[in-house]
């Protein structure tokens, strides 16, 4: 295992060190004293595992293809931007615009997430991106969603803010959102249909939650006790009648 002390290191130099280490075949990297450095794991490939101590900066794991990144604290915005494969585990909260255009891999967040999470996520063949957030989420959750899976658990939040913000799934035309709790149709985009889970959904959900629970030492049964709602697009062509030809 390679340990890099990131104290006072500019992001470009830090990411260069990481890239060089991965190119040399390093399988495990420990980054300590991280303090807001951008672009960690950006465009990185391979099966390396990177553990981060401290709060990393924006665009973590952007365009990433393969590696696993574990963040022991909070994380910031734009994680997993257009990520292709791999896994990011955040033990704290994470910020806005997570998983923009994400095509594959997993993003597991223990705490709350910000606004515009899962925008334009998309699936492709076997690739099926998954974001699971343990806490609450802001507005525009799953906006323009074209594929993949968004799961929001609302585990240990207070009642001061709603489970999920407004404009939920606005413009959604693919993929699926699972929300643990009730969903108000009024807060959703017009393109969203809300249903209860069938047995197949429950099996699917359980499978993904087991992996999530393993990352955070939680019990799947406890989470599965409460009811979920499933949100899917009402149409694959939400704007089919918009134009005059």
């Amino acid at each position, binding site marked *: 295992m390679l340990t890099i002390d990131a104290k006072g290191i500019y992001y*470009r130099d830090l*990411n260069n060190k990481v*890239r060089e280490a991965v190119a040399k075949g390093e399988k495990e990297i420990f980054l300590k004293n991280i303090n807001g450095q*951008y*672009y960690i794991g*950006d*465009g990185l*490939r391979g099966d390396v595992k990177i553990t981060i101590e401290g709060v990393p900066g*924006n*665009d973590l794991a*952007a*365009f990433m*293809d393969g590696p696993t990144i574990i963040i022991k604290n909070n994380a910031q*915005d*734009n994680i997993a*931007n*257009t990520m*292709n494969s791999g896994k990011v585990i955040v033990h704290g909260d994470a910020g806005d*615009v997570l998983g*923009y*255009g994400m*095509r594959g891999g997993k993003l597991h967040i223990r705490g709350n997430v910000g606004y*515009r999470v899962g*925008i*334009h996520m*998309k*699936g*492709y063949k076997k*690739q099926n991106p998954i974001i699971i957030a343990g806490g609450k989420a802001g507005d*525009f959750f799953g*906006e*323009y969603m*074209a*594929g993949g899976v968004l799961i929001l658990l609302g585990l240990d939040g207070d009642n001061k803010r709603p489970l999920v913000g407004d404009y939920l799934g606005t*413009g959604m*035309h*693919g993929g699926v959102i699972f929300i643990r709790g009730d969903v108000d149709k009024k807060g959703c985009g017009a393109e969203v249909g809300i249903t209860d889970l069938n047995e197949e959904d429950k099996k699917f959900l359980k499978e993904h939650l087991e992996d999530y629970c393993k990352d955070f030492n939680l019990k799947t049964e406890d989470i599965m006790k409460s009811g979920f709602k499933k949100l899917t697009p009402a149409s*694959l*062509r*939400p*704007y*089919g*009648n*918009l*134009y*005059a*030809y």
Partner: protein
Amino acid sequence: MFKSLAVPEFLAKIDPVKCIRCKRCIQNCGWSVYSWGGDKVLIDTFKCVKCLRCYHYCPEEAITIEDNPVIYRNNANWGYNHIRNIKRQAETGGIPLTGMGSDLPYPILFDHLLIDACQVTNPSIDPLREPMELRTYLGKKPARLEFDKGPDGKLRLKTKMPPQIKLEMPFIFAPMSYGSISLNAQKTIAMAAKELGIVMNTGEGGLHEEIYPYRSNVIVQVASGRFGVNPDYLNAGVAVEIKIGQGAKPGIGGHLPGEKIPLDIAKTRMIPVGTDALSPAPQHDIYSIEDLRQLIYALKEATNYTKPVSVKIAAVHNVAAIASGIVRAGADIVYIDGFRGGTGAAPVIIRDHLGIPIEHAIAAVDDRLRQEGIRNEASIIAAGGIRSSADAAKAIALGADAVALGTSALITMGCTVCGKCYTGNCSWGITTQRPELTVRLDPEVYAERLINLIHAWSHELKEILGALGVNAIESLRGSRERLRGVGLDSQTLDILGVKPAGR
């Protein structure tokens, strides 16, 4: 279903005496204007768009396509298009779409600019007999160069040069995605780009495996839908372009309807077959110049700082300030698309009424970047209505480093600018995915025509440079002193930084 009250634009006619009933017109029309009536060809003229495919493929010259004389009563205020669009909207409730650049008679400043020439007091140059340099490098240029002495005692460049795109001539092909145009059309452009030593641009449609062999002549685009974007894609081409906007539809997104997404396009865009490919209007991770900087550097990190990053915007009112922000955000190239720029599909109302012309935009951006002392930090690509080498020369004299060609490249493939690209019925096999239509466009044949065009324009550019008495395109770049305006008011001349003819 009642008959539409929007009168047909064109009347397709077949001379019954000349017609030999070969049915070639029926085969060739992508819009199904013609059908076989047992003993003669039947015509549904409502469907005609005057693309002239049938006219060219009729062996007997029996077909004529006329503008419909039965249009609405002449009215300078209520024009044909206004009345027709209202009728179409009344019947459908939809937004009328269109293709290509605006056809409205807005002033075209290129047609009010004239280029200088040498007479008596300074010699002109004959490009046929003297070397003439058109080579152009796109990318960030260092503010100063440092040299040191190598072990052999010779001077060598110490400054590390930022990555550049090398062009043999100051032309590139404008972004046109696989989806908006056919794969054969894209291949035609790629083959021509490779042969010419210039570049094409994927648009936001991913990079098809058949275009990969041309990757050293390709700019890959990243836009709000992130279609086909993965680390392979980002590193495939010679540069990465962030698309913010398009001249024909500034501020609005793209929308490739699901029925136009067959397997091959879905594969290239990396999305499921049959779903809409929606490119949201904004990139939702970019709400500021700071956010743009974040994406620019995310792309530079993902490509290990080996590729220039371009940012494409539509020319809008504050284009100079925006371009300055883009350059300060770290872009190596600013691509400006004027409002006359083409499109595969855009709402008519957006195309015809939003944005500003490219001529004003180039001058304003070049001025601003010079005033701020950052003109060297990025190259400028001008696009949106470049119809000839003269337009290109004028754009370069106003301050562009290179110009992008979209419509003119398509015209070499048979396009007649009928503007119906959005229907997906292009009879010339360009803006369609129907296999029986795309097969008509043989990339080998049409790449040669496109190469011919660019060679011809390059020769013309050299002749212009020769007449100006300079021997490199570099000497014309930003040289507005070599332009004069005719019929332009003083404020426009001031914006363009050009003197009136006679001064």
